[in-house]
């Protein structure tokens, strides 16, 4: 595959990205025209704003960073909290 240059990529996606940014601008305008969100809607609105700062950052993996922003944290002690062991003990558990 011939490696595409940054110029190629910009030319390729410029109009689509422009359209998507306009869509986001219009979405935020619509929200603001309706007033100030409250409760969980306010938190979501804030999350959206944070995601826009990631877009403007130099992070080489913005897509993953935004995915993490919109994700619950992983708790490594979840097995202890749920009192679960691995599947090879399923029969053992059933017999107890």
């Amino acid at each position, binding site marked *: 595959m011939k490696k595409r240059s940054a110029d190629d990529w910009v030319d390729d996606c410029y109009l689509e990205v422009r359209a998507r940014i306009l869509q986001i601008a219009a979405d935020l305008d619509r929200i603001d025209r309706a007033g100030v969100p409250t409760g969980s809607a306010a938190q979501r609105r804030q999350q959206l704003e944070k995601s826009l700062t990631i877009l403007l950052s130099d992070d080489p993996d913005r897509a993953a960073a935004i995915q993490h922003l919109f994700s619950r944290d992983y708790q490594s002690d979840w097995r202890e909290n749920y009192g679960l062991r691995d*599947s090879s003990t399923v029969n053992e558990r059933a017999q107890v």
Partner: protein
Amino acid sequence: MDFIDPHIHMVSRVTDDYATLARMGCVAMSEPAFWAGFDRGSVDGFRDYFEQLTVVERSRAAQFGIDHYCWLCINAKEAENVSLSRDVIAMIPEFLDRPGVLGIGEIGLNKNTKNEATVFLEHLDLAMQHDQLILIHTPHLEDKYQGTRMILDMLCDDPRVQPDRVLVDHVEEHTIGEVLDRGFWAGMTLYPVTKCTPARAADMIERYGNERLCANSAGDWGVSKPTAVPDLIFEMRRRGHDEAMIRRVVHDNPRSFFAKSGKFKTAVRGA
């Protein structure tokens, strides 16, 4: 280009979709058992569903020259009913020897609850006891990262599990790396709004390579596009990828993974 859709729910699609997919190059597909849009009330509801998956859809697909395969389980949404789940898990072996049954799936988590994890572990044990391949559903949206990590924990905790016999589906930018690093197969789902677009899937292929990576439509009763895999083919061609590179993701990889079941019989056209 011939392709295989490794994850599509044809019970909720019209016959015209089979006709269109056949004309677009679909030679085979696999259909995991999933949530019907409502919680089923009894084990007999699942027995009928498994009959539909193993007999009816197989026959419907064959009319269009498409080989239909399937996976059996009770899905994570209905796993909150642990008692019903156990009844279904106990009944599944009745169907495992049928032609076209590739393994246990799509098992996984939905809201990452204790009941879901319990039923996941019991499915895992069933798969290990019957030497079955496994197809994994990872949760949606904000639950995906946590749920995927929990699933990987459970898979890696069990010494009987061979990672190359497990396909972890619905990976996205924040989960694909760990799934592949731990030796599992990964599936990217081309699904509007809640999952991945063809362009993002092509980005992931470019970043992570095409080894152990598949793409599917997960076409179902929701807003979805059963012809999404050809959209990925188109996107990759547009970017200048060669045909062999594309074919590996949409045809050769699912073929290699399914072949591990010993039940995948689809011939390579023109070979």
